């Protein structure tokens, strides 16, 4: 970290819409440190880890419902026909665009409604070591909220949760996504 800025994924304005190149050249370390400060502040405000997890999920949800608009505008992907396409778009386009990583998709359930995103490295958790008194904290729970919120705005109710986490000693970080149902009514998704 001493030496260079790295991993700023410099995507230009490929669509020619006059959008600023994304992300505006900033260091990924600033993002990681900001997220870390956020989580530690939440830990200080809420006494127990479960409340922090819920708050992170809520915050992620609020980010997700807004982020989806930005994503659809920049990426110009069409409507996905099934959950598999959605998974591909999430892993190959969305994660690449916002976090600069491309998780792999594995472990499809037989019914095709559940899959796992395997993140080899998670930029949110660079330099982080969970202390012992926060062993049940799901540090990157914001990501689950973002996925849930974004997909709800495109009429898909999903559940996202972490099943493996490098902070807890596992080799990779794994998010399990489960499709619940298609949302038919057109009422805007309420915030919790």
């Amino acid at each position, binding site marked *: 970290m001493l030496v260079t800025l790295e991993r700023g994924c410099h995507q230009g304005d490929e669509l020619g819409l006059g959008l600023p190149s994304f992300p505006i050249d900033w260091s990924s370390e600033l993002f990681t440190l900001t997220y870390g400060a956020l989580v530690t502040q939440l830990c200080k405000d809420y006494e127990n880890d479960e409340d922090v997890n819920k708050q992170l999920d809520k915050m992620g949800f609020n980010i997700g419902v807004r982020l989806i608009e930005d994503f659809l505008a920049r990426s110009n992907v069409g409507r996905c026909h099934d959950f598999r396409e959605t998974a591909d778009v999430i892993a190959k386009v969305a994660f690449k665009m916002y976090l600069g990583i491309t998780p792999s998709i594995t472990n499809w359930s037989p019914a095709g409604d559940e899959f796992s995103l395997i993140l080899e490295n998670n930029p949110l958790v660079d330099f982080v070591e*969970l202390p012992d008194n926060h062993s049940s904290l799901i540090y990157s729970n914001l990501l689950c909220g973002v996925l849930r919120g974004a997909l709800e705005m495109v009429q898909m109710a999903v559940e996202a949760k972490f099943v493996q986490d490098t902070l807890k*000693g596992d080799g990779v970080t794994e998010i399990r996504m489960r499709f619940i149902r298609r949302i038919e009514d057109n009422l805007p998704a309420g915030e919790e």
Partner: protein
Amino acid sequence: MAVCIAVIAKENYPLYIRSTPTENELKFHYMVHTSLDVVDEKISAMGKALVDQRELYLGLLYPTEDYKVYGYVTNSKVKFVMVVDSSNTALRDNEIRSMFRKLHNSYTDVMCNPFYNPGDRIQSSPGGPYFLCPYPVQVGPTSCVRSSPGGPYSCVRSSPGEPYSLCPIQSRAFDNMVTSMMIQVC
């Protein structure tokens, strides 16, 4: 191969001291403490020249009959002190420099951990889960358990009959870096 590595805060209290436990640890603590005076002297001597030109690596602070003490100061006045065995003549200056640079990198990683409060000791409080240091020490528990970081404990023994010591695991990456420096030259 370092026999003792210490990180001293700006206010001159230790953030981290670790020495190979085959020796009397107090001796190393004392050596590090006395070396702080030499460090201050070197900083103020260079301070009369342009501050920009002050290098982080201070070089050999002072030799004793058995050991040599090297120093390194960051721009935030955090000091790293390394004690090496005098008999280890193979250690060259640029190797010591690179060890200090690696230590500095590990230290900045510890600082970036959002759960670490600057000024805290770089260790978790005793009583937490431990992992075993892979080097032989004075008599300790002979049961052979080593944990993968944070994970369940598994039975591993590097050599039969070898006693192990226990170390706290909060700043694992930093501890691992220091351990590797004590075992071999980086």
